[in-house]
């Protein structure tokens, strides 16, 4: 893999990034209403004062360039709604929480998904295959807003083992991360099974078997690297999705993550927070996919990027 490839990928990011900035900036501005519209209407003079305070009285194009200028200094501006905080501060506080939730969930997803998928692939078309695969269908079909409350009901309210909401102790991490990880575990288990099944019939596996290796040795030494490839390519979008898509889980369990800001800011027309979170998510998705492409080359000798 050449350095030129990495550089080229990074360079293509710049125009795409600018396009995203421009699109999001103008789309949110053209949405009806504004950050200061409310059921109790603000008197005209007060509205003028507010607009002056946030430079909203300037022409839109001028505001756009002001935003670009601030962005080049990594200054995402003040929040319209959370008036004693800047967008940088909001992200600095909330993003690590989302990241933590996402990573723990992903660990669960990998742990449960790969072991269930591996088991199913080892003994295809048996009890060990049918049970995890049926469960995975369930996992894919059931949305988090069903799984979450059910888990809360069982472990929080009936058994009284775990807290029902919050984000303070390690026990608080269990239910939300399992809820979020469950759906991804389901996908991963099917991908793992598929990957392994494909590899099983390849010549080099047959050779390994002919050499007299045990199934476990074959699995760990020969099939794992190839069989896991579909999972790896899924990991990039999964990590990005798990972090950006944690909104429902964050609301159910009252977790102070970024997902809530993302939705709330769009509903409030908190322009700067909408911009900040969208750009962060865009960067995150880009970086995750980029990393996966690199890992892919390391795992699969057949893939080469020029």
């Amino acid at each position: 893999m050449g350095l030129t490839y990495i550089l080229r990928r990074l360079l293509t990011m710049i125009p795409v990034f600018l396009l995203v900035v421009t699109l999001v900036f103008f789309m949110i501005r053209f949405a009806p209403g504004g950050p200061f519209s409310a059921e109790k209407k603000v008197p005209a003079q007060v509205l003028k004062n507010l607009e002056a305070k946030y430079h909203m009285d300037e022409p839109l194009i001028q505001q756009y360039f002001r935003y670009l200028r601030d962005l080049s200094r990594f200054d995402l501006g003040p929040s319209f709604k959370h008036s004693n905080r800047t967008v940088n501060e909001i992200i600095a506080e909330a993003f690590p929480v989302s990241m933590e939730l996402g990573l723990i969930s992903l660990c669960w997803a990998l742990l449960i998904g790969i072991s269930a998928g591996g088991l199913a692939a080892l003994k295809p078309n048996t009890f060990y295959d049918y049970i995890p695969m049926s469960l995975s269908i369930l996992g894919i079909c059931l949305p988090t807003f069903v799984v979450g409350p059910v888990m809360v009901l069982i472990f929080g309210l009936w058994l009284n083992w775990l807290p029902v909401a919050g984000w303070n102790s390690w026990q608080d991490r269990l239910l939300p991360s399992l809820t979020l990880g469950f759906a991804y575990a389901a996908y991963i288990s099917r991908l793992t099974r598929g990957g392994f099944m494909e590899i099983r019939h390849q010549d080099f596996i047959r050779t390994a078997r002919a050499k007299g290796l045990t199934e476990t040795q074959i699995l760990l030494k020969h099939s794992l690297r190839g069989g896991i490839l579909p999972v790896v390519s899924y990991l990039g979008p999964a990590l990005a999705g798990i972090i950006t898509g944690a909104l429902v889980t964050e609301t159910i369990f009252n977790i102070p993550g970024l997902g809530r800001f993302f939705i709330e800011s769009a509903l409030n027309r908190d322009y700067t927070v909408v911009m900040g979170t969208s750009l962060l998510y865009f960067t995150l998705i880009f970086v995750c996919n980029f990393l996966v492409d690199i890992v892919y080359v390391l795992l699969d000798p057949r893939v080469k990027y020029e």
Partner: protein
Amino acid sequence: MSFGSWRLTLCTVSTLLFLSVSTLIPLSNAESAVPQVLNLGNGGEPKDLDPHTVTGVPEFHIIMNIFEGLVSKDPKNLEPIPGVAEKWKVSKDGKTYTFFLRKNAKWSQGDPVTASDFIYSWIRLLKPETASEYAYQGFYIKNGKAFNEGKLTDPNQLGLKAIDSSTLEVQLENPTPFFLSLLFHHSLYPVHKATIEKFGARWTRPENFVGNGAFTLKKWEVNRVITVAPNPFYWDKETVKLSEANFFPIDKHETEEKMFRAKSLHTVDDLPLEKLPLWQKDTTGVFKNHPYLGTYYYWFNCTKAPLNNKKVRQALTLAIDRDRIVRLVTRGGQVPATMFTPPGTGGFKPESRLPKDGSQIQKAKQLLAEAGFPNGKGLPSLEILYNTSDNHKKIAEAIQQMWRENLGISSSLFNQEWKVFLDNQQTKNYMIARAGWIADYNDPNTFLDMFVTNGGNNHSGYSNSSYDELIESAKKERNPKKRFAIFQKAEDILLEDLPVLPIYVYSRNYLLSNEVQGWHPNIEDIHPLKYISIVKK
């Protein structure tokens, strides 16, 4: 230090420790065997805790405990009681208020609270640069409006004067009978000048914060918790029992309710609608339900046919069975609105002018026929606009059905995202639109001055000069009886002209642990933590 002196110090310290612990133990056993920590579900995450810039209810729940205005409210009957001001006097014409501040009122870092603190704060509220959405709460002060609009730039021309450090004289534009009640509103609380000048917008961070309430800000973790603890310098700190209160921002009512059941919360801010029937059967006494100072209604767009026809509006209003709506649809103990101002607002009890149930359907039919649409024939299909929400939808569907069955009128429902909805409502781009109004202060004026010609919140395009005159004269009338008579006349005109279709008076439905003492359900839903304590049950 030699080994000998070490031993001596050790002995002394341990003796002292033993003595202090042995004297403390009986005290703490008697006073606070139960941890005095209150955990509250508080709706959304507060935007800020600056009394001059915030607008929301979650913010107010916290702010009223970490600041104190000139006047407080009795937690039981909501009558004005002394706050920072020990006493006050009102001039004969009702336009000059003199407040005598207590000498021992202090900020949370120990400075005294003075008359000039209030002057600074109210100038700050009115300054255009502050861009306060509640600046109009200061428009009752002489020249307040002109100053906020930039027509006057000299703050000395405002009706505010510090006679000495503990005497404040306030001159008003008009005798404003509800002025004392207004002083409980957060926009008129004092703020600490030195702190704001030093920290700017960041002065409401816990590390910088200075307030003058019974409590002070201890911790603020965004979307996690806001913790307040007693203000050691508060003038009435003996009354305060709680050692800490935690306000948890929880957007989802379902989550809140589960946390209450798991005993992580003492009280929830609201309940999911579908859980109401279950909790209403509760026998443990934790379920609370009482009326609230707000009205749920529909706007009629009076500028467009056919709703510019008064008879059509009257027919539509009379054809609704409000009782069925609150019994079968909302089911939360709401009261059918047979008037616009909720009964009991500031002591005012408006007469019922609208039918509670479907008893006037015949009259409605007749009115519709008189308007030229017998049995609904010839009337264009009506459009009901509401912001996306299951509850609004259910109510709109019930009304749609009642109009169809009772009047033969067809109507369609449209839902829009909140800000899009507001935009259309405020530009009168609708036929019928859902609305709700919650009182800013406990006086009928907050409900009735909304309908004056071109009023900022009058979205119906309604205009009636005799109505405008009544509202204007109520501003000047000091005799409460005469004033209520004026408001009754205004109500009568309003319910005759019907730019709105009142549906129900809001109610509060929430849960409160039996361990909480000193929490009195009331129509303004105000519960100062100062009076609250926790007992084990």
